[in-house]
């Protein structure tokens, strides 16, 4: 797509539309969290989680421990693959594996990342259905959903557009900052995910 046509479409957001959208989303997230909307929406969601337990996934997850364990195994393995792709790609951006071509590492790792993310999400939905009401009352579950959402939005709408161009054009400190924050957000997703298992 022609960059000028894209910029004219988002001209209403000013000279830096991606930055404007990022700031607006961050502001909306803060308003949602601290403006009372989160606490008013929370009770409404209980019926959704109760319904999830009545679905086919919910029945299988609750009554057949082997199926739940099998899917959880797939969830953990795919999360491991996702974490590996993040560490490999961001490690390369931070200066590790410097003998490998940076473009090949970033593009290859992104393909693995997308595949692993799809499996993580699909198996995660199944697992939540089995223990939906339990996780509804766990604050750490909501922290995981928050960090997962931030991680996905960050990967596709901030990190990828920045790194899709010639990396040499980008300020190296910005590249390092992006790599560090990517590792941090996916570390938090993994840690809060395991925390759910211990809650």
């Amino acid at each position, binding site marked *: 797509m022609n960059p000028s046509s894209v*910029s004219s479409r988002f001209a209403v957001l000013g000279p830096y539309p991606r930055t404007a959208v990022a700031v607006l989303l961050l502001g909306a997230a803060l308003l949602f969290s601290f403006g009372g909307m989160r606490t008013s929406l929370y009770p409404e969601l209980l019926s959704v989680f109760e319904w999830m337990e009545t679905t086919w996934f919910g029945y299988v997850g609750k009554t057949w421990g082997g199926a739940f364990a099998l899917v959880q195994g797939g969830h953990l393995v795919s999360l491991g693959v996702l974490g590996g792709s993040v560490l490999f790609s961001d490690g390369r951006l931070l200066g590790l594996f410097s003998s490998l071509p940076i473009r090949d590492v970033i593009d290859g790792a992104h393909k693995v990342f997308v595949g692993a993310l799809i499996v993580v999400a699909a198996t995660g939905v199944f697992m939540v259905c089995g223990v939906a009401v339990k996780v509804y009352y766990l604050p750490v579950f909501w922290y995981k959903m928050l960090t997962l959402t*931030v991680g996905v939005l960050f990967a596709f709408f901030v990190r990828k557009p920045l790194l899709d161009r010639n990396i040499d054009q980008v300020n190296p400190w910005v590249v390092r900052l992006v790599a560090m924050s990517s590792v*941090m957000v996916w570390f938090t997703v993994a840690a809060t995910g395991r925390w759910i298992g211990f809650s």
Partner: protein
Amino acid sequence: MSDQQKETDKTLRDDTLAAVVVSGSIVTFFIVYWSFEIQSVRELLEMAYG
């Protein structure tokens, strides 16, 4: 400088600025969140073992 080059530079500045804003927020959140969690664990350990 051609219009195409100016547009590319502007897009680069926009992507860079967005990356700095979002990455800075993530790093700040990460430090604050895990600091509170570590503090909470320390308080629990102090309550348990003195």
